[in-house]
């Protein structure tokens, strides 16, 4: 049940202000996104058209606390096919950014942030890796980028995994 008194009427503007959220208000609810979505095909809890309606109605907490907010596979099928150029893939990115700012984060994204924020890359490169590379005749790769680490730290992302 939707309780009107609990809706946040400003949520849609908050999302539309976020990079990627700009085209949110163009949606006319045709459902092409949902019909194109490979995640929706497997699991009904992820439904792009429904997510847009929830955002437009102002169901801020339900969206930001949900499991579905993390489920976009970024395939861009909806993005390509949307007749209104809503750019739903980018809206999901905007929603994840907002959820994280509000203290919600999926452990998988926390770990990705930790790796990039610690090493400047998505995987830790160990001696073993560089030795294997050497055997294959491949050049060594750098394992740590202090400049990237410091930059990410300066943006306050470090608190996500601290």
């Amino acid at each position, binding site marked *: 049940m939707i309780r009107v008194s609990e809706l946040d009427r400003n949520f849609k503007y908050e999302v539309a202000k976020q*990079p*990627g959220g700009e085209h949110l208000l163009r949606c006319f609810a045709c459902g092409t996104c949902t019909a194109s979505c490979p995640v929706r095909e497997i699991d009904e809890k992820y439904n792009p058209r429904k997510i847009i309606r929830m955002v437009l109605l102002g169901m801020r907490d339900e969206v930001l606390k949900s499991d579905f907010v993390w*489920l976009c*596979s970024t*395939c*861009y099928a909806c993005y*390509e096919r949307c007749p209104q150029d809503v750019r739903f893939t980018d809206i999901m990115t905007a929603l994840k950014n907002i959820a994280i700012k509000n203290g919600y984060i999926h452990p*998988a994204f926390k770990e990705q942030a930790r790796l*990039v924020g610690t090493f400047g890359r998505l*995987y830790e490169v160990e001696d073993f890796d560089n030795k294997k590379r050497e055997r294959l005749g491949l050049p060594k790769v750098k394992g740590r980028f202090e400049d990237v680490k410091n930059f990410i730290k300066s943006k306050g992302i470090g608190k996500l995994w601290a």
Partner: protein
Amino acid sequence: MGVKYALFIGCTIPVRAQHYELSARRVASALGIELIDIEEFACCGFPIKSVNTYVATVLAARNIAIAEEAGLNICTLCNACTGILTEVQKKLNEDEDLRKKVNKELEIFGKKYNKGVSIKHFSRILYENVGLSKIKEKIKVDLKKLRLAAHYGCHYLKPSEIYDGFDSPEAPHTLDDLISVTGAETIDYKTKLDCCGGAILGIDENIALSMANKKLSELKKEYVDALVSICPFCSIMYEDNQRKIEAKFGVEYKLPVIYYPQLLGLALGFKPRELGFMLNRIKATQLIEKL
């Protein structure tokens, strides 16, 4: 030919897909493409986009600025790197305020973004800059006995607006053309455009594996010798996770998943070992014996 590119190798390939890297380097040198390694290239930014899009934008801009400083265009191997670098460059070129703001951030790296460089995936460079006819001239081994399925991967084609109409997001053909030029047969199949699910493997394994299974189960009916990939994340889903998928769904695929440069390398006369075939999780022994 004789073209030079900065090789943007990304994070995943150097530690988890050395066969892709090895074969791409071999193929590049055989076709007169010089790939320059740049140690300073760090994360492309994609893995942190969901966490903080602005930070991802700065990381992407940092990499592009490094290439710009070196006076080199970028050659990528991973679809996700290609996507974020291309997208960010487009945004920075269109939005002066963002460019100024990002350049302020880049000062701590001692870098400056001016107007960017050409950013292209290796497969696109093969198609557009080398060209099918030049590749054809270099073919030494006709792969006509092979029947293959192309997997483009989402970020190679979409969002199409960032790729200047390079290929169609709904009916792509460039990778199929690159396969055909080796003499191999390439098939049209129902799940060709399917997403591998890689981006949500860590979020919901059940959904991600189910997504990858759709393509594998369709290909079982097609009797192909291999699936041809151009992205490490897609290969991780279809190859590294194939046994897990087989166990979960009670099926058997044993479908080799090879990288396009491995295939092209065979046609150019390289030995399987030189192309890293020993590193493929699902051995392509039968495919190689057919040649």
